[in-house]
């Protein structure tokens, strides 16, 4: 369990909403530097799974460990764990009353207790990482979707997390804007960030994922390295799903 290589361990997560069981026993490990991509039909609980990991949603059953420490049932210490687990949301959830740079530095100031100058400097560095340093003083309402999402990635990065959870990061974006966000994510993956990504973007999955997990009916139905999954005739359900994705008109 205390394997130095294993950053995140998720064990037997169950979650029901109003009688319907959305997650029916999810278990997996994530090693440092790995990128795992979750795909599957909508409503199969993929987003819920991510939120169970940082306890934004409390699972009915199951446990989560970060670097050997238990995240579930940690009481007030959850705030400490959330600093080390970054999250990027489908709808960005940028703080609307703050400029881009202040969005990135807020948690540094209030949670990490950094000094103003130090926080500002780090925030600008992260914005530069995602290519948004020229927009530092702009408000979220002035940014395009792709720009806003990149800022929110910078905000998550600023906390120097051990792992970042991406919850359908490009689903709310127009196709043209999707690309700029995926480029940032690909670079992060190649530079060794540990990432869990829920997405429909198969191109992304194939280029940087170490493993693709196909979720259906609340469980991981099929999983494996991306090229293996696509070529091996055994993984029929996943291929069906991907095939259906490709059939969407206008894609």
């Amino acid at each position: 369990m205390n394997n130095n290589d294993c950053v995140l361990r998720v064990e037997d997560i169950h979650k029901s909403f109003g009688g319907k069981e959305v997650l029916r026993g999810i278990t997996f490990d994530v090693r440092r530097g790995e990128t795992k991509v979750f795909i599957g039909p909508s409503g199969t609980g993929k987003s819920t799974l991510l939120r169970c990991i940082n306890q934004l949603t409390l699972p009915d059953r199951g446990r989560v460990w970060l670097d050997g420490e238990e995240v579930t049932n940690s009481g007030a210490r959850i705030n400490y764990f959330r600093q080390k687990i970054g999250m990027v949301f489908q709808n960005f959830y940028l703080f609307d009353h703050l400029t881009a740079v202040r969005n990135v530095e807020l948690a540094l100031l209030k949670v990490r207790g950094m000094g103003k100058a130090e926080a500002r400097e780090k925030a600008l560095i992260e914005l530069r990482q995602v290519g948004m340093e020229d927009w530092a003083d702009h408000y979220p309402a002035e940014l395009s979707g792709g720009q806003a999402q990149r800022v929110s990635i910078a905000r998550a990065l600023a906390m120097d997390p051990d792992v970042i959870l991406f919850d359908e990061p490009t689903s709310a974006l127009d196709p043209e804007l999707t690309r700029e966000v995926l480029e940032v994510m690909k670079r992060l993956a190649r530079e060794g960030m540990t990432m869990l990504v829920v997405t429909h973007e198969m191109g992304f999955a194939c280029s940087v994922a170490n493993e693709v997990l196909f979720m259906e009916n609340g469980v991981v139905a099929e999983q494996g390295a991306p090229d293996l999954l696509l070529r091996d005739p055994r993984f029929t359900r996943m291929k069906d799903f991907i095939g259906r994705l490709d059939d969407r008109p206008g894609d």
Partner: protein
Amino acid sequence: MDVLSILIDWFPYLLSGVTVTIGLVIAALGIGIILGLPMAIGQVYGSRPVRSLIGVYVWFFRGLPILVLLFLFWFGIFPGIGLGHLPAFIVGAVVLGLRGAAYQSQIFRGGIQSVGEGQMIAARSLGMSRLTAIRSVILPQAMRIALPGWSNEYPNILTDSAVCYAIGVAELLTLASRIVAQTNVMMPIYLATAGIFIILNYGGLKILHGLERRVEIPGFGTGAV
């Protein structure tokens, strides 16, 4: 006697009532925020007993006429708890403040509830405690949303301050009636008083609208996520 010269002679006296009126208004707005904001936070984030308690407070102070509240506190409650010696101004200010808090808490509550739930989610995902999230993310947005509604409280408090006449506070209306009693000149004094109230009303609103513009944020308040 020439009405105009009476007006001019008594005008400074009348204006001194303006200071008291403004004092009542500031007290009401101040106490209104100091009590109303925590109440709003309690109603949105608090436990059931807390919410019920605040609900009862709001129901009580909004359901009673201001006149009855003033009588109740001035003749009954304050003397009853040994504070009968306090001047009417203090009692008036307290009553207007408590009542203001009841109304304003609902305005702030509306503002807080208008802030998209994603804001709290994002804040907590960064490791902020609930309190820090409320203070640094929710409230700055909620207050901006609530500002127009809160500004609308100002005229109400201003006109309510005149009811403090009933307990003898030396505010504008009280002084006007004293002048009328003394000089037997009625309509000109009353109309002049009305004029002063109207100026105070719209002057104050102008200041508040200016404040709204100063704290404006580009694009904010239009479909925040």
